């Protein structure tokens, strides 16, 4: 358990570090191609941060609104609240507020920027279909997302992906307009083939980098799912509970109507049910690791 937790933490840190290096390489090419200098990077970071800040400060309200979740009191759902409060004690964070979606498809997600304002949302189907140990497993997974500040990390990654998208967009535009001043100036002085090769590499990078950024972003998301599974199991000290819950949730054929592509990555199991197995490309572009792999990791603990 301890190894899985630290391994997943390192992996997501490694991915973020790789992302930073990737952005620097991109910026180098960007400067070279457009001749905008560091100003371009600063502008891109500001624009990406601006758009992500809106998401960061209102995402929880938007998500709860889109999913038609309603806040519930302890009198209404004592069972849910007892489980949530118990696991909050185990995690050492204040108990999050509980929301419920009236839908028979079992699923759950957590939202909120910091433990003090976090919420946990479950469907009524989850409460009906899981037993207490399984529910504890699911809530522990969500509690770990909150405790590990996953919303914050995800926002950071989204900002970086945004920076990449902007830079590559501007690079492509500058190619279309016949390149920036510096490149033209240099090629006149005639340093030949290496110059052309670099421009070609820059073009390839501009086209491919948004794709790479998306792949890294999703890889981070998958690592955080593994991490939340492992640290959730650490809270309940009973990985089999979550494993059995994951099996039940994924076996349930019903799709969750309230979820869409924009919110799917938040849920404990992809609610859109397009689980086509772990094939190469499919896997690169999924927000969650395959259920079988998550269960296998839990059973290894």
């Amino acid at each position, binding site marked *: 358990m301890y190894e899985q937790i630290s391994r997943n933490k390192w992996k997501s840190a490694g991915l973020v570090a790789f992302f930073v290096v990737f952005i620097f390489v991109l910026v180098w090419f960007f400067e070279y191609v457009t001749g905008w200098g560091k100003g371009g990077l600063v502008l891109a970071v500001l624009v990406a941060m601006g758009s992500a800040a809106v998401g960061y400060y209102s995402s929880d309200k938007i998500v709860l609104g889109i999913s038609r979740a309603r806040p519930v009191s302890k009198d209404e759902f*004592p069972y849910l609240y*007892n489980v949530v409060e118990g696991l909050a004690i*185990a995690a050492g964070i204040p108990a999050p507020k509980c929301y419920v979606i009236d839908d028979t498809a079992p699923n759950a997600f957590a939202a909120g920027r910091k433990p003090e304002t976090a919420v946990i949302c479950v469907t009524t189907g989850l409460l009906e279909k899981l037993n207490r140990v399984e529910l504890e497993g699911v809530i522990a997974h969500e509690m770990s997302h909150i405790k590990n500040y996953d919303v914050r990390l995800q926002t950071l990654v989204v900002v970086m992906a945004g920076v990449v998208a902007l830079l590559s967009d501007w690079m492509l535009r500058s190619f279309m307009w016949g390149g920036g001043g510096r490149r033209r100036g240099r090629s006149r002085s005639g340093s030949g083939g290496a110059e052309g090769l670099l421009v070609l590499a820059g073009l390839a990078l501009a086209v491919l980098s948004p794709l790479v950024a998306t792949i890294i972003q999703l890889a981070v998301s998958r690592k955080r799912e593994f991490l939340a599974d492992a640290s959730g199991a650490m809270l309940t000290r009973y990985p089999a509970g979550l494993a059995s819950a994951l099996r039940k949730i994924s076996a349930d054929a019903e799709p969750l109507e309230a979820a869409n592509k924009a919110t799917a990555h938040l849920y404990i199991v992809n609610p859109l049910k397009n689980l086509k197995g772990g094939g190469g490309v499919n896997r690169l572009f999924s927000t969650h690791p395959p259920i079988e792999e998550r269960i296998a990791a839990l059973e290894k603990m």
Partner: protein
Amino acid sequence: MGAFVLLLVIVAAAALIAVGMYNALVTLRNRCDNAWSQIDVQLRRRYDLIPNLVETVKGYAKHESGVFERVTQARTAAVNAQGVKAQGEADNVLTGALKSLFAVAEAYPELKANQNFLMLQEELAGTESKVAYARQFYNDTVMKFNMRQQIFPSNIIANMFGFKTREYFQIEDEVAKGPVKVQF
């Protein structure tokens, strides 16, 4: 002159690191205390629920006075228990007494349908698991605190200022290690 400045910088950096380590130790010690009192909070809630439960069951099963007495006694003993070990033992007795109370309730279908009884039962189950989680969190915190005191280099600071390792909460009773099973 250059060497003197360098020495000064090194000493200042070392002092800063030492302060950081000392503060981390103090923080962890306070967290241990807080985690410990969290267990008491949950235990207190559990004790507060029991009189209500006894009253509710009494309303349906008047003839089982022996069970009620045992639960009430065990509760009083647990409330008054002093020290970690005595507290743990008194708690085990109380858990056993509660088990027999629920076994009695089994024989009264109207009681089992009573909304108040069901709510108390859920509350009690929830509080019991909260007690367990609070103990687990206490042990997790103690582990972090003890580890800080043992690993280099913060063990130097810990020794210098006389920090003491804490004891883990342990349950000796084999039966109490498993989850409490209430049969219905």
